[in-house]
């Protein structure tokens, strides 16, 4: 009632005037650049030293993107997918622990999850480079215990890249799962046990389904940045582990081959935006904002 009353009283230009400065910024610097990206992806490079372009609607760049960089696309999605699975395996129990047993410490524990990520992303990844190095502390211990052979290496392998991605995007998995778990009414579990459900049955039938939106949101928030990343591949990987982000960055900033870089970026965005739209269609956009 009150809401009806208010909306009829307010003048209709008020919300638009509040929205417009921010939306103009988003349209100008998010929407318009996407159109330029599309245009450049359909252009031809006239000069390979200055990167000068001519728009002629040619689709060759897309063909080049698919033909030459298929492995990098496959690696990006494979590594990002593996990192996302690791994040669920590590993150779900941690979020569950905080939501269920955190008590009055809940907020402090959530703060503790986020705290490491106030140290610069680059510096954290460099730290993993040191930790995982052949002479580094982690392998030295494993080798001293004879758990792995003397020539076993982690750095410059896909495992290091996947591990780095999983570490760097873990809080984006933990936070939405925590939020969805925290909302669950604990009386539901009491009711389940009153009805003779075992704790594991109660978890399977009540907690897990109610927390799935959090898992889905976390999956998007982890997978998307991981799929477009090139920092982990650069610092923890080798030339054999380059991802699509590496290629876009190299084609754009080093080779000055803007059309191919734009085509690659456009393909990546189309795939991911399609996934986001499908997600939003079924689950809404609320869960994506922690």
């Amino acid at each position, binding site marked *: 009632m009150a*809401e009806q009353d*208010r909306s009829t009283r307010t003048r209709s230009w008020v*919300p*638009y005037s*509040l*929205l417009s*400065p*921010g*939306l103009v*910024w*988003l*349209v100008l*610097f*998010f929407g318009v*650049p*996407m159109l*330029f*990206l599309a245009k450049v992806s359909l252009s031809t490079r006239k000069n390979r030293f200055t*990167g000068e372009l001519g728009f002629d609607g040619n689709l060759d760049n897309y063909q080049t993107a698919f033909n030459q960089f298929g492995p990098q696309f496959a690696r990006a999605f494979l590594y990002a997918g593996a990192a996302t699975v690791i994040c669920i395996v590590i993150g779900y*129990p941690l979020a*569950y*622990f905080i939501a269920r*047993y955190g008590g009055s410490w809940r907020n402090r524990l959530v*703060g503790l*999850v986020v*705290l490491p990520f*106030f*140290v*610069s992303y*680059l*510096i*954290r990844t*460099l*730290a*993993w480079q*040191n*930790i995982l190095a052949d*002479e580094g502390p982690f392998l030295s211990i494993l080798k001293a215990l004879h758990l792995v052979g003397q020539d076993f290496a982690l750095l410059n392998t896909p495992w290091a890249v996947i591990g780095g991605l999983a*570490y760097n995007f*873990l809080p984006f998995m933990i936070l939405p799962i925590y939020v969805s778990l925290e909302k669950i009414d604990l009386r539901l579990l009491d009711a389940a046990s009153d009805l003779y459900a075992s*704790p594991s049955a109660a978890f399977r039938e009540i907690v897990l389904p109610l927390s799935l939106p959090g898992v889905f949101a976390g999956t*998007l928030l982890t997978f*998307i*940045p991981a799929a*477009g990343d090139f*920092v982990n591949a*650069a610092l923890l990987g080798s030339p054999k582990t380059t991802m*699509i*982000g590496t290629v876009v*960055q190299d084609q*754009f900033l080093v080779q000055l081959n803007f059309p191919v870089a*734009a085509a690659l970026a456009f393909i990546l*965005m189309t795939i*991911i*935006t399609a996934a*986001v739209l499908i997600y939003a269609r079924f689950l809404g*956009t609320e869960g*994506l*904002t*922690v």
Partner: protein
Amino acid sequence: MRRSWGRTLLTGYAVIGFLYLFTPIFFIIAFSFNKPKGRFNLVWQEFTLDNWADPFANQELTDAMLYSLRIASFSTVVATILGSLIAIAVSRYRFKGGAVVDLLLVLPLTTPEIVLGASLATLFLDWGVDKGAITIWIAHVMFSVSFVALTVKARIRGFDWSLEDAAADLGASPMRAFWTVTFPLILPGIVAAALLSFAISLDDFIITFFTAGSRNTFPLQVFGGSRNGTPPQINVLATMVLLVTIGIIGLSALWTARRERSQAGSA
């Protein structure tokens, strides 16, 4: 019995999880006390306090940090204002096109940074804009606006807007009603969003990589350093940022507790 066994197991898992989260952090802090041989701070040599005695010894690194702090400040101020206005508009009013606004806010956050960076770089290329502080600032405001709008919106969900009506009934103008009643109540959400947007801007790497000119922000300088040399001051500055963050979190917790107590007292 069975339940407590599961709980113990989960607690153990959580302890290991937290240790994992903090492993690189311990490493970074420890190596801020290292005295490296050569240009790379990779292998433990000997304990020293020299790096902490002179945290700004590396001129390039210090300049990059100041540049990053300046860009983060300017982008946070603008993004917090624009984003909060959007959040107030979408939570308080009903209007046509709400779904489009929602989508426009979410898409910048769900688009890979590499795409945002590359698209902005093509825009600046086409407009013939020289890349530098202004282009980085434009990019940072862009992703921060979405971020602030969505965070503030989530924080003021459930806010009782009829308080403003009550103020109006008591003769307050709409402006006065907003500043004296609504604003103080939604301020904590706005401050939280501003702090996070500052932190994200300070740490952004990929978008900045595409929109920066010849001058390096702190993350760009560190990335360059991963090839040319990593002075231990990197670790010192990173640890300092972490300490400042802990300080801010502690202060804001105190502030919230005091507000709650004074509100409970006045109720």
